[in-house]
Structures are given as structure tokens and as C-alpha cells.
């Protein structure tokens, strides 16, 4: 089973939940793989005992201008829909950051003067944690195409961890990176907090899940602070509330130091049990 852990708003506890749930399911004897898909700011490894096992450079394909046979006809710039190519009077200039790797310029060039070339965009690292593996995608600074790295990281997980419970820690927001991290999963857990911000962003995330036709449920974090808007919304919309994690300064402290929580905070472990019960035999 593949479960994405997402949230509209940042800082609601996605990573706290996914790292703890991975460790807890492992302690119950399950085969778990955790993937950190928050490729702009991957944090999961900070909360786990990690040993780096393997690391790969992730690439994207970018056209590279070869002067030799080029007639400067300008076809490449004409077909590029992302303004990534400019035809100047004496040369062709490529802007790699704007390129979406569609291959149109390269394959429609009459003189084959724009061969596609591998260009590093980030790293995929495989860590061994206590009893399970963590796969992390990490985008290079200044690099803009998060989606491609997310999809490569998921591909790595699918290829190497058949039959495992796959937990995917998604980036925040509701746009393309989150969609890439959610669209091929069996279920999406939306983590929110019981505040107007949490509710506002939960609604956006729910609308996105509807567009994707996804199965989803809600975990309310820091419950007890704020208001009951999130609960009312979930009831009105018939969205399952999988568990409510109590607001607790002790959690903030342990989290701050990079510690796992469930062994030290009994009510947090109860919440993990509710999640396990929610999925039942599926995991």
C-alpha cells in the first residue's frame, strides 16, 4: 500500500507523522519504506538514525547547442513553449532552468544541432534507519523543476520496494509538486491543525484531492488549541478524521531536538494506533 502524507499548510506535522509512523509500523513487524519527497527542504533524515547506503545524482535532460551544422534557422526557438531557447543572430542560447525537457527543439531541429544532454538537478539518497530504509530526494539550490525529481524518487521506491508499506512525505502546498507526490498513491493523509489557517489550507488540499479523484482522510494535529472549525468542516463534508493528536509543548521540545515521539509520549502513540487501526488489514 502506498500512502502519501500531505498538507496544504507547512509546519503542520507531516514529517513528524511520517517519521514516527515509519518507525512505529516497523516496530510492529511491518516492512516499511519512507520516501522524503519534500525535495526543496527534505527534513526526515534529521529525525532518524541514518546511515547512508547509496547515493545517486538525479538528472534532467537539457538540450545543448552544437554549433557545427546549425543553420540558425530558428525552428528550436519557435517550437519552445517555455521561452527556454533564444535564437540570436550568431548563436542559439539555452536557458536550462526554464526547460521542461519536452525534447521538441532537439527532435524537430533539421540539423540535429540540439542533442539532449544529462544535467544534474539533485540527489537521491538511500539511508538505512533503525529497521527500515529512507529514500530522500534533494533538489540542488536554484533548481526549479521539483516535479521531475519527485517522480524519479517515487520510481526508485517502486522499483526497489515491491510489497512494502510505502509512506511518502509530500511537500507542502497544493500545486504540481504535491500532485506528483499524491496522484499514484492509494490513499492521502492530510495533516492539518485546528486553526483558521489550517482549515483554509485543508480546504484547498481537499479540492486538489477531489480533482485527482483520490481517497483521503484527515489527521488533526495540535488538537485542543485554536477552534473547532476543522472538525466541523470534516463532519459536514463527510471526511474521515483518522486521529486527533493533542497539543503538547513536550512534543514541540522533543521535535525541536530531532527526537522520535511515540516511545516518550503515550497519547501520541495512541494516535499512531488509531492510524494503524484505520488502515486495518490494508497494511
Amino acid at each position, binding site marked *: 500500500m502506498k500512502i502519501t502524507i500531505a498538507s*496544504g*499548510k*507547512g*509546519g*503542520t506535522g507531516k*514529517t513528524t507523522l511520517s517519521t514516527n509512523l515509519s518507525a512505529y509500523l516497523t516496530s510492529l513487524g511491518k516492512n516499511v519504506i519512507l520516501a522524503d519527497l519534500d525535495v*526543496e*527542504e527534505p*527534513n526526515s533524515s*534529521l*529525525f532518524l538514525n541514518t546511515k547512508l547506503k547509496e547515493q545517486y545524482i538525479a538528472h534532467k535532460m537539457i538540450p545543448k547547442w552544437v554549433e557545427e551544422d546549425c543553420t540558425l534557422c530558428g525552428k528550436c526557438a519557435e*517550437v519552445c*513553449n*517555455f521561452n527556454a531557447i533564444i535564437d540570436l543572430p550568431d548563436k542559439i542560447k539555452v536557458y536550462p532552468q526554464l526547460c*521542461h*525537457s*519536452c*525534447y*521538441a527543439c532537439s*527532435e*524537430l531541429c533539421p540539423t540535429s544541432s540540439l542533442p539532449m544532454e544529462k544535467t544534474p538537478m539533485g540527489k537521491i539518497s538511500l539511508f538505512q534507519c533503525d529497521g527500515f530504509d529512507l529514500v530522500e530526494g534533494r*533538489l540542488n*539550490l*536554484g*533548481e*526549479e523543476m*521539483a516535479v521531475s525529481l519527485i517522480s524519479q524518487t517515487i520510481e526508485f521506491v517502486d522499483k526497489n520496494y515491491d510489497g512494502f508499506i510505502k509512506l511518502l512525505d509530500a*511537500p*507542502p*502546498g*497544493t*500545486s*504540481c*509538486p504535491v*500532485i506528483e507526490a499524491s*496522484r499514484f498513491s492509494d490513499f492521502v493523509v492530510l495533516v492539518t491543525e485546528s*486553526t*483558521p*489557517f489550517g482549515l*483554509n*489550507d485543508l480546504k*484547498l488540499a481537499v*479540492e*486538489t484531492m*477531489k*480533482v*485527482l479523484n483520490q481517497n483521503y482522510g484527515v489527521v488533526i494535529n*495540535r488538537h485542543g*488549541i*485554536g*477552534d473547532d472549525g476543522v472538525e466541523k468542516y470534516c463532519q459536514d463534508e463527510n471526511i474521515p478524521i483518522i486521529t486527533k493528536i493533542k497539543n503538547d*509543548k513536550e512534543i*514541540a*521540545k522533543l*521535535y*525541536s*531536538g*530531532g527526537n522520535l515521539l511515540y516511545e516518550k509520549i503515550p497519547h501520541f502513540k495512541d494516535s499512531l494506533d488509531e492510524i494503524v487501526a484505520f488502515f486495518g488489514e490494508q497494511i
Partner: protein
Amino acid sequence: MKEIVVISGKGGTGKTSFSSSFAYLEGKNAVVCDCDVDAANMHLLLGANFKQKNDFLSGEIAVIEPTTCTNCGDCFDVCRFDAISKNDDFHIVDKISCEGCNYCYQICPHQAISMQIQKAGDIFISDIKNNSKMVHAKLGFAAENSGKLVAKVKTEAKILALKENRNFVITDGSPGIGCPVISSLSGASLVVLVTEVSVSGFHDLKRVYELVKSFNYSCVCIINKYDLNHNILKEMEDFLSNEKIEVIAKISYDETFTKAMSVAKPIVEFDKDSNISQAITKSWDIIKKRIEK
């Protein structure tokens, strides 16, 4: 006119609580700009009235005309995004997967494909508390191009500030280090880095600072939840002092943030005499002095 951009790398550090407080303090002297278009919520704290609404058109997707399509499959062969699939008599495009590259449109031998411009979201100009104005946006569900929408929101805010002769644009940036953040930062007079004392807050601070540094923006830092962990605070302060980044406020872990949010008020409006409000007011003064220099 000067622009102050508040960013954080990590979400949930208090970025919007601080930036909306700055906006509230400065009142009609500032135009406010919410660049967190993926999950915008600054309007909740500032009482925006959504006065003006404009469509944001951006990006294209391919549409195949079923009656012209001969099902030859050339489009399927060239699509790198697995966006095209074969139906019984014609091919179809999956709207979510299509990147709008137009390769299929270029090569379709029967001109059965057209490119259609998409509505990617809405841009709003609102009146807000304290006689100020705000530019904000809502990205369409499952839409892309949030970097472009950010750029558009910023442009609108700057035009408004120039037209109405306001001194400041206060921008609430987006999280992360990718396209929307790079867009949020462009043209900043000063960047305010908001961080929290936690392993992840520190990690994300260092990463987003690298980005800020690579563009040569000058910056200051607000440390939130400073009393959660002494060791991390120490490391963080050493890092900031090595990089010569001034810490303009240190705020303790405090549930006032959430309480103020629950009644839709910036902290300085919710409880203006509290220690936090005083620290925020002081830091806004420091920011203004820094900019004047």
C-alpha cells in the same frame, strides 16, 4: 518605495504572523503582498474584502479534436509526460499530466491538436485593516505555474504602491527554495528570514539562506521558539553571527500565536502590550532603519 520580503524555508515557523503584524503596524504606508499562493492565508489575519478580482491566465494544454484525429499515434510517440493515451477512435490528453510543451501540436500530421490557454488562478486586490491594501491570489486546483503567479502578484503590488505613493511593499514569501521562492525574492530591498529553534528549522534556514546569498540580498533574522532547545539555539546564533546576519528578534514558544490566529488578528492587534508584540514592533523599527541606510 522599498520592498521587504519575509521568508522561512520551513513552513509553520510564524512567517505570516510576523509579516501581517508588520503590515498592521505600518498601516496605509504599506501595500501588502501575499506570495504564498499555494496556501495563501494572510488575508484571514488582515480582513481582506476581495474587492477586485482578475483571472490569471498562464500555461497551455493540448486539446485533441476527436473528429479530425485519425488515431495515428504520432502525438503519443513524442509526448515525454505520458499525457496522451489512446481511446477507441481517437487520442486524448490528460489535463493534469500535460505540461503544455506543444510538441504534439507541432507534429500532428492532421492539425487535430490545438493549444488552449488555461486559467491558473485568481488575483485579488483587497482593502484591509488600517486603511491599507493587499494583493493576493488563489492558485487553481491542481494548477501549475505558481512561480509565474507569484511574479504577477508582486508586480501588481508594486504598481499599486507606486500609484498610491506608498513607502513600503511588505511581502509574505512562499516556503521552500524552488521557483515560487526565487520569484518572491526578486527585487527585495531587505529579506527577513524567520526561523524556529528545531533541527528542521535550522536545516531549512541554512538552505534558504544559501539561496538568498546567491542572489546577494541583504537580510536579517527573527528566531522564533528560541527557548525550545539551548544547543540548537547556540548553533543557530553562531551560524548567524559567522554570516554577519543581524538577529532582530528572539521570541519564546508562545501559544499567543495560535490564539491570535483563531480570532483572525495579527499579534500586534490581538495583544499590543504583550512581550511578543513589543518585540515585533521593535524589530519593525530596526527593519525600517536598516532600509533607510
